[in-house]
């Protein structure tokens, strides 16, 4: 299926850029008349994916790149967050809610992504990086004609 509209944003792997990423994605998606709650859900999911890329993908090294691509299809949005960091050896374990190696982290990042989006796909290769695809369906009255 061909995207109706797309944006691509590349940010340096700095925590300062997480807010920019989530607000930019929300602003793009807000071209469709979504509710405030729906936009907040998307902002949280994007924040989690980009934070994961910085914290886990790059071990908080600030000189790397995180790519965020957003595409509008007729009845859904797709957001892809890509890093080129260390990758995830065990995706199933990484997505479990209690999995966190840090006392001040909840391990709930993927839980929030799964709760707030309709679909979450993770593709990762150790030493190559991780790609997180988030999809949000649009209500039938918001869908664009094919």
């Amino acid at each position, binding site marked *: 299926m061909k995207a109706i509209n797309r944006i691509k944003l590349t940010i340096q792997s700095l*925590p*300062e850029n*997480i*807010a920019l990423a*989530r607000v930019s994605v929300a602003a793009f998606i807000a071209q469709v008349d979504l509710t*405030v*709650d729906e936009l*907040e859900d998307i*902002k*949280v999911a994007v*924040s*989690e994916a980009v*934070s994961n890329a*910085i*914290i886990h993908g790059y071990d908080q090294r600030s000189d790397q790149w995180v790519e965020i691509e957003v595409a509008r299809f007729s009845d859904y949005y797709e957001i892809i967050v890509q890093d080129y960091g260390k990758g995830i050896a065990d995706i199933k374990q990484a997505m479990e809610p209690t999995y*966190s190696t*840090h*006392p*001040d*982290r*909840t*391990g*709930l*990042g993927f*839980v*929030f992504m799964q*709760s707030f989006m309709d679909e979450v796909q993770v593709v990762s290769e150790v030493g190559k990086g991780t790609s997180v695809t988030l999809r949000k369906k649009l209500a039938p009255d918001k869908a664009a004609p094919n």
Partner: protein
Amino acid sequence: MLLNTQMVDQSLVVKIKGELDLLTAETFRNLVERDLKRGKAQNLILDMEHVSFIDSSGLGVILGRYRRVREQGGTMALVGVKPHVKRILELAGIMGIMKVYQETEQALADVN
């Protein structure tokens, strides 16, 4: 994010304004830890009325402070939680372990 802290009897009251995410979580942790030690506070009350965004990084530092306050026998409470923040707190199970109040005075009267 802006933080305003105040000691009231045995409690440290922290007013948070802005976004609580990976960027601001460390600032929050360092300042609250410093003031908990400095004021020898037993309890911690977070006024979240002006928190405009929170994600799991923000929740993590709140839960970290909760563990610390509980370890020293104190109580932690939240004040003025807005609906979009409440949804995140509910999903994380925080609403089941911390009391939430409408006003700081109510929380102080309960915990002190």
